[in-house]
């Protein structure tokens, strides 16, 4: 059994006639990065808000925030993508639904929403874990200085907890890049989908898969280096970060 290897395939012209297959992969990479970074910003903002609410004294607010986390954690990402892409335009008023369907980048927008909400619930868990990991005295000291509760969060608790959870946020950033590949199921031609289409045109299966694998490995290597640098740059003397070791999850 032999397979015809042809590593030169990346430099050959793709069916559009103007670019090479390498350009196809790089165009996919652009969508992957655009989707990951935009969804990451959204997830970080919502995740911080929900994660903070989870540590508040108000029981009902905590319940609502916990419900939010459970909702987005317990449905597979691919199903959430389908819900945003196929279901949402149908159950909102017809005018909005039609507008959503006719958006020029409908699959990008829906993938962004799905990935952003999905990741925000995971970030919320990490943010509240970070706040809960702080000594109780931090909060008391903040209020004793005459800060209001929002001020205590703004100036004391959140800056401290974010430094503690940097390693897990890094893992989450690596995860969002990988999870963005699920967007191919709703028609976004990101890196994995670009690989698959390259394979369909050339039948050079393993070269195209290797190309994508190498690109993903390089991105996660860069993310890891940046995270190490960030961890060192903003470490608080006397507080040891919980370490980059991540066990489960994705």
């Amino acid at each position, binding site marked *: 059994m032999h397979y015809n290897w042809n590593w030169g395939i990346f430099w050959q012209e793709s069916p559009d006639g103007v670019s090479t297959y390498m350009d196809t992969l790089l165009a996919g990479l652009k969508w992957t990065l655009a989707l990951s970074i935009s969804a990451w910003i959204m997830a970080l903002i919502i995740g911080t808000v929900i994660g903070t609410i989870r540590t508040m004294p108000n029981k009902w607010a905590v319940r609502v925030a916990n419900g939010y986390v459970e909702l987005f954690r*317990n*449905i*597979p990402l691919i*199903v959430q993508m389908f819900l945003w892409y196929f279901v949402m335009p149908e159950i909102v008023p017809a005018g909005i639904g039609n507008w959503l369907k006719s958006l020029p980048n409908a699959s990008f927008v829906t993938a962004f929403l799905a990935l952003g909400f999905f990741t925000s619930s995971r970030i919320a868990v990490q943010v509240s874990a970070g706040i809960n990991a702080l000594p109780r005295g931090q909060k008391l000291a903040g209020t004793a200085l005459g800060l209001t509760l929002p001020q205590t969060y703004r100036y004391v608790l959140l800056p401290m907890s974010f430094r503690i959870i940097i390693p897990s946020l890094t893992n989450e950033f690596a995860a969002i*890049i990988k999870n963005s590949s699920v967007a191919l199921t709703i028609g976004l031609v990101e890196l994995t989908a670009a690989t698959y289409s390259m394979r369909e045109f050339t039948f050079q*299966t393993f070269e195209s898969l290797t190309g994508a694998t190498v690109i*993903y*490995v390089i991105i*996660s290597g860069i993310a890891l280096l940046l995270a190490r640098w960030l961890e060192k740059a903003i470490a608080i003397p006397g507080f040891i970060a919980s370490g980059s070791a991540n066990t489960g999850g994705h």
Partner: protein
Amino acid sequence: MFSNFDFDVIQRSWFYLFTTGMKFTLTLTVVAMIGGILFGTVLAMMRLSHNKVISFVATSYVNLIRSVPLVLVIFWFYFLVPFIGAWITGASQPVQVGAFSSALITFILFEAAYYCEIMRSGIQSIPRGQISAGYALGMNYWQMMGNVVLPQAFRNMIPILLTQTIVLFQDVSLVYVLGSVPDFVTVASKIAQRDGRLVEMYMFVAVVYFVMSFGLSTLVKKLQQRVAIIR
């Protein structure tokens, strides 16, 4: 909003959905969990080995798998397994291994990298005194690992291993990208497209996944309180 919501399509198909799709998804989850934990434990022991070559091989494998998306890994093995099969058996054509075996191999090899990290932290959480005590009793490495370290590591890690299994249960839905594997999401989406009832079907799928994952994670939380070793 739900005025033309057709519950009939769910009523017609739920039995079929559960007896084929969900059965496939659950079988794959359980078998991949067992295989993944076994292979993951071997990988963890390799990573902690004093032999530099062995630990380098295991570390590279785990880091490689963990930096690539599952969808890409599914494509890799879907195309690679027939070739490896042909190479092992010496056949001249790629060997067709079937949807279940192909998906199973993918998930065992992929999840093993994640289970490996869980088992590694489990093994590392065992106090060194336990290892010395094992050797002091005259055990060799394998007896010490099998009778002293691994049972305790497993016990400590049961909740996290099960949490990872819930992740695996959700991950199985990604075999949808192959289109030919009859898991819960694929079967449901085929019915949805056939009957033109995407809204009802996908909402039903979401509710089923939510109820099952939420139920399982609640059980894991209860179990976690029970198995916690008091030190």
